[in-house]
C-alpha cells in the first residue's frame, strides 16, 4: 500500500513561510496574459482615438485577456460553476475583474464591429481597469506577504502597462507610430524599474519572508538590466532613430521580462508569512 499523498514533511513545512501551492502557471498565466492584454488595450485605444486602424490589435488584446481567463478556468476546482464569480462585486476584486472583463469584451466586440473610436477608447479604459483589478486581487490577498505589500500594486500595474507598450511596439512594426510607441516603452520601462526597486527595498525593510525575497533577488539582476535598462535604452534609441529592429528587440525583452517577473511573483515568491508568537507562554514559575 502506498504512503499518503502529502508527506509529513510537507505538512510540517506549514510552519515557516512556504511557497503557496494552489496557484500554479495557470494562475500566473492569467496575470501574465491578462496584464499584458489590459495594457495593450489601453495604449492601442489611444492610437485608435487618434484615428488609427486598431481592430487587429484590439482583438489581440482581448484575446490575451481571454487566454488568461481560460487558464484560470482550467485551474479552478469547479469550472462549471464559473458564473458564480459574479456574485460578490461589493468587495471581491476577483468579481470586479470578471465584471470588467465582461464589459470589456462587450465594449471591445462592439468597437470591432462598429469601428466607433469612442468604443475603442472605452475598451482601452476598461483594459486599464482590468489591469488595476488584477493588481488589487493580489494586494487583497493578505496571506501572501509579497502580494499584500502596497507596493506590489504599482509594480503590477507598471509591468502590465510596460508589456502592453512592448506589444504595441511589436504591432507597430512598419507603422508611423513606432517611434512614439518606442518612446512610450522607454518611459514605462524606466517607471517599472523604479517600481521594482521600491518594491524590493520595501519588502526587505518590512521583513517579508526570506524565501520570497530570495526568489525575487534571483531574477533581480536580469530583470533590472536585461528587462528594463537595456530595453529602455534600446527603445529610446529606436525612438530617435526609428529603427524597427532595435525597437523590436527592446519590446521583446521588456515583455518577456514582465512575464518572468509575474511568474516569479505568483509561483516562486508567493510565500506565506508563517507563524510568529509575540509572547512566549510562561510555564510555571521561573
Amino acid at each position, binding site marked *: *500500500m*502506498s*504512503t*499518503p499523498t*502529502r*508527506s*509529513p*514533511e510537507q*505538512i*510540517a513545512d506549514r*510552519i515557516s513561510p512556504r511557497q503557496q501551492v494552489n496557484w500554479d502557471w495557470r494562475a500566473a498565466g492569467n496575470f501574465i496574459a491578462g496584464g499584458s492584454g489590459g495594457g495593450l488595450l489601453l495604449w492601442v485605444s489611444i492610437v485608435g482615438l487618434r484615428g488609427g486602424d486598431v481592430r487587429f490589435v484590439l482583438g489581440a488584446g482581448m484575446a490575451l485577456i481571454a487566454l488568461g481567463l481560460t487558464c484560470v478556468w482550467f485551474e479552478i476546482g469547479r469550472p462549471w460553476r464559473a458564473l458564480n464569480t459574479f456574485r460578490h462585486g461589493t468587495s471581491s476584486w476577483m468579481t470586479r475583474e470578471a465584471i470588467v472583463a465582461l464589459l470589456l469584451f462587450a465594449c471591445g466586440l462592439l468597437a470591432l464591429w462598429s469601428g466607433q473610436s469612442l468604443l475603442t477608447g472605452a475598451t482601452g479604459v476598461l483594459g486599464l481597469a482590468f489591469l488595476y483589478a488584477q493588481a488589487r486581487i493580489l494586494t487583497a490577498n493578505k496571506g501572501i506577504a509579497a502580494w499584500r505589500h502596497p507596493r506590489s500594486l504599482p509594480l503590477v500595474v507598471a509591468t502590465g502597462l510596460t508589456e502592453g507598450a512592448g506589444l504595441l511596439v511589436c504591432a507597430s512594426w512598419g507603422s508611423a507610430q513606432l517611434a512614439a510607441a518606442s518612446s512610450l516603452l522607454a518611459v514605462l520601462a524606466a517607471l517599472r524599474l523604479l517600481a521594482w526597486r521600491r518594491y524590493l527595498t520595501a519588502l526587505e525593510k518590512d521583513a517579508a519572508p526570506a524565501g520570497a525575497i530570495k526568489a525575487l533577488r534571483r531574477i533581480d539582476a536580469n530583470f533590472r538590466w536585461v528587462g528594463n535598462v537595456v530595453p529602455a535604452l534600446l527603445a529610446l534609441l529606436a525612438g530617435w532613430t526609428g529603427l524597427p529592429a532595435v525597437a523590436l528587440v527592446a519590446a521583446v525583452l521588456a515583455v518577456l521580462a514582465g512575464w518572468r517577473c509575474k511568474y516569479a511573483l505568483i509561483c516562486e515568491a508567493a510565500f506565506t508569512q508563517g507563524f510568529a508568537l509575540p509572547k512566549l507562554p510562561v*510555564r*510555571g*514559575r*521561573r
Partner: protein
Amino acid sequence: MSQAKTVKHVPTFCYNCVSGPDFMKVKVEDGVATDIEPNFDAEDIHPARGRVCVKAYGLVQKTYNPNRVLTPMMRTNPKKGRKEDPGFVPISWDEALDIVAAKLNTIRATGLRDQAGLPRLAASFGHGGTPANYMGTFPALLSAWGPIDYSFGSGQGVKCVHSEHLYGEFWHRAFTVAADTPNARYVISLGANVDVTGGPCAVLRHADARVRGYKRVAVEPHLSVTSACSAEWLPIRPKTDAAFLFALIHVLVCERRLAQLDVPFLRDRTSSPYLVAPDGLYLRDAGSGKPLVWDQACGAAVAFDTPGAKPAVAGRYQVARAVVVDADQARRELLDVEGATAYEMLCEHIAKYPPEWAATVCDVPAATIRRIAEEYLENASIGATIEIDGKTLALRPVAVTLGKSVNNGWGAYECCWARTVLAALVGALENPGGLLGTTVRLNRPQDNRHLSVKPGEDGFMVQHFNPTDREHWQAAPATRNLHQTLVPIVGHNGAWSQALGPTQLAWMFQQERPADWNMPAPTFPELWIVFRSNPAISFWDTRRLADIVARFPFLVCFACTVDETNFMADLLLPEATDLESTQMIRMGGTKYMEQFWDYKGVVLRQKAVEPQGDCRDFTWISTQLAKRTGLLEPYVAALNRGVSGVAPLKGEGYDYSLDPAREPAPEQIWDAVCRAASVTLSAGKQEHGLEWFQEHGFYAVAMSRLEWYLTPTLERQGLRYELPYQERLLRVGRELGNRLHEKGMAWWDEQLSEYRALPEWHDVPARWERELENAGAKIADFPFWLLATKSMQYHAGGNASIAMMHEISGNMHGHTGVIMNAKTAARLGIAEGDRVEIRSHIGATYGKAALVQGIRPDTLVVTGQFDHWATPFAKDLELPSLNTIAPMSLELTDATGSGSDIVRVALRRVEATT
C-alpha cells in the same frame, strides 16, 4: 454527507499504553465505527476528565486497516528469515486451533519443562502488561497451564524504567514513581517525559500545576516536549545524571546541615539512625540481632525498636558490644567498636561529590546545581502540614522524577537511590506533595500496595528476594533470562518477576554464552506465543534478534498485521481488536504513571462493531484452547478465582461462578465478572450485569486520597524506609557473588559491583565507550551520543501502521528523522531535511535531519522505534531507529538486568534533499 440511519455512541476504554486506562466513546454509524470521542460521563471520576489521548483516535483506522490479518494464517515456507517470504495461507479457525492444541498437548505429554529444566512453553506480551487489557480470559488459560517462560522480552522491563521498577518497589512500594502533582510546588525532572508519556491524567495535572505556578526544572540532553513545558531546562551530558543528583544531596547534607532537613522523618521513618560498623554492616544487638541505634536519652546503643528511645540521626558512637551479620549468615562479634549512623555514613560518602565536581562531569554549572538544591529545600516547606480526609499529614511539595535512560541501565541504581534519598531528607517520601509510588507488581496484592506493607527484617517492609543462600539459590535457571538466578531483587511473583528479569540475556544466550558458563545450555522453547509484542523492532540489535526469532521451533503470533516478529511465525491468529471485543478491567485506585484517582472501580471494553473478517474474540479463543487441551476445568476454576476478571466470581453473599464442566460463552463469562465486580465494589448494595455495563460503561466508588500516601501506613506499623544505607543489598550482593563463584562463574562480577550500601559515582558514560572499544571499534570514530525519545502519537509503538498517526506526528519537529543541533549540522554540512546516516559499531540507520537549537551539540535524538521492514505502511516510512544499531551487551547490563537506549554513533550526510 449522507445521513446514517443508526448512530450509537458506545462507551469503552483505551489502555494501549501504561498511562491508561482512559475513557472514550466510539461513534458507530450504520454499524461502522467512524469517530472516537471522550466519555464525559466519566468527567467527575477520571483524573483526565473522561478524555483520551491522540493514539486512541487512530483506533478507527486500526479496525479497518486493509492490511489487517483477517483469518488464521499458516506458514507454508519452511525456511524462516528476513528474506524468506513466509507464504502465509489462510486456514480455518478449527484447523488453527487444532494445530496449536496439538503442540500444547504434546508438551503436556512430554513434560512441561525440558531436559534443561526450562519451560517448553514460552509467551511474550509487550508494553508494560497492557496486552492483558486486550487478551480476554487468556490469563486464566496461562494460569491453568503451569510453568511458562516469559523471558523473551521485547524491551518492556529492561528498557523501561527498570531500576525504578525494582528499587522503587523495594524502597517504597513504587513500581512506578510520580510526583504528587496536584500538590507539588517544585519538581526536578531528569528525563521524565511526562507530558508525552504520562497520558491524559499526567498531562492535565501538570498543566494545572503550571497554571497554579509550580516550578518544574527539566534536566536532560534535549529539549523534549516536557522540557519545553518546564520553567527551566538544563542540557545535561548524557548518562551523568547521578553526578548531578549526588551534588544536590551534597548541598543539602554537607552545606546545609541536618537541622534544616526533616529530622523527625529521618529519625523515625528511615534507617538513618542505624549504626554501621567499620566493615560497612549494621551493628546489631548480640542477642536479638536487631540493628542498633544510639539512644541519646540514655547514652547507649540500643535495638532500633526500643520503646522510648531517642535515636541520634548523625554522629559516631562507641558501642561496647555488637555483632555484624555478613553474607551467608557469617556472624562476627565486635567489642568496643565505633559505629557511625547511616546518616553520618551518607554525609561522609557524599562529601566527595560537591557541585564543583559534578559540573565537570555533567556539564551543568555548579552555581546552577547549588541553586536548584536550595530551591528544592526551600520549596520542601519542612514542617508544613495538610489535612486530607480528616487526617493531618506532612506536606512536602517537592519531588525528583526520572525517565528512561536515567532510571535504567548503568547509573540507574545511583540515580534512583539519590532521588529517593533526596525525598527522604526533606520528608517528602510518600507524603503529600512529594514523591509517590503508585502500584506494585512484584509484591502482592497488586491492586493495593498498602496491603503489601508488612513487617520484614530490621524494621523494614518485607521484601521477597529470590534466595541467594546456598540451599535455596536457583542454581540451575528455571527461566531463560535467569531472573531468579541473577536478580534477587526481582522476586518470584510469577509472570511479572520473569518479565522484569534480564530479558535480553534470554536472546543473547541463545547465540553465545560466557566462557565460564557452568549451567545447562538454554534450549529454545518448543512453542512460543506472542501477542502485542514486536521484539524484532522494539528491542536492541533488532536485525540480529530477528534472525534468532527465525530459529524458534514453533511460533504462534496473535497478529493485527504482519510485522517483523510474526514474519517468522508458523501460525498467525487474528484476534478481535480494541473496538471488536469485550473485557472488563479495574480502573482507578493508584496505578502506573499518574493514574492515582479519587475513585476506584471497573470499566468495560465492549464490542462496538462486529469483528472484521474472521477475527475472533480472545475470550472465545482462550476457551477453545482450554477445551482442546483438557484444561477446561482448571481454566474455569481460574476464572472463578478472579483471574482475568476483577473479583472472585464467588464470595460472601454472592455466587456467579461458572460451571467448570461446561464451556462458557464469552458473554456469560463477562456477565459474571461484571456482577462479581459490582457486588464487591458496592459492598453488596448493587449488582450490574454485562448489559448494564454496555450501557453505562463503568462503575466507580469513592476512595480516600489517603491511599496515595504510603508513609502513614508505615507509621502505623512502626516501619522504616530502608534508606539511605543499603546494607541488605550489600549482603545480598555478596551472597550472590558467593553462589556464582562457587559455580566457577565470574561473568556477572561487574554487575555485582552495583551492590553497594552507598552508591558511588563511576564513569557511567565511559562504560559505553569501553564496550565499543572492547568490540574492536575506536571511540573517536563515534563522536555522538544517540538517544531515543518518544512522542505521544507513538508511545508504545504498536500503532506504527496507522496512517493518521504518521500524518499528524509530522507536526512535531524532528519526528521525520534525526534531531540534531543546528550548529553541529552546519559544521558537518548537513541541511534541514538532508538524508543522514547514523552509524554505530554494529550497524547503521537512516533518516532525515531535523535541525534544532534545543539539543546538546554532542547528542542526536531519534523519536520512537521505527525502521520497519515488514509491517505494512510502516515499512515504507524510511524512519530511523536506535534499536537497529544499539547492541545487546552483557557489559552494558546492570545488576538488575537493565540497559539503556543510548549508543555512540557517527553521523554523516548521505544525500541532500532536492
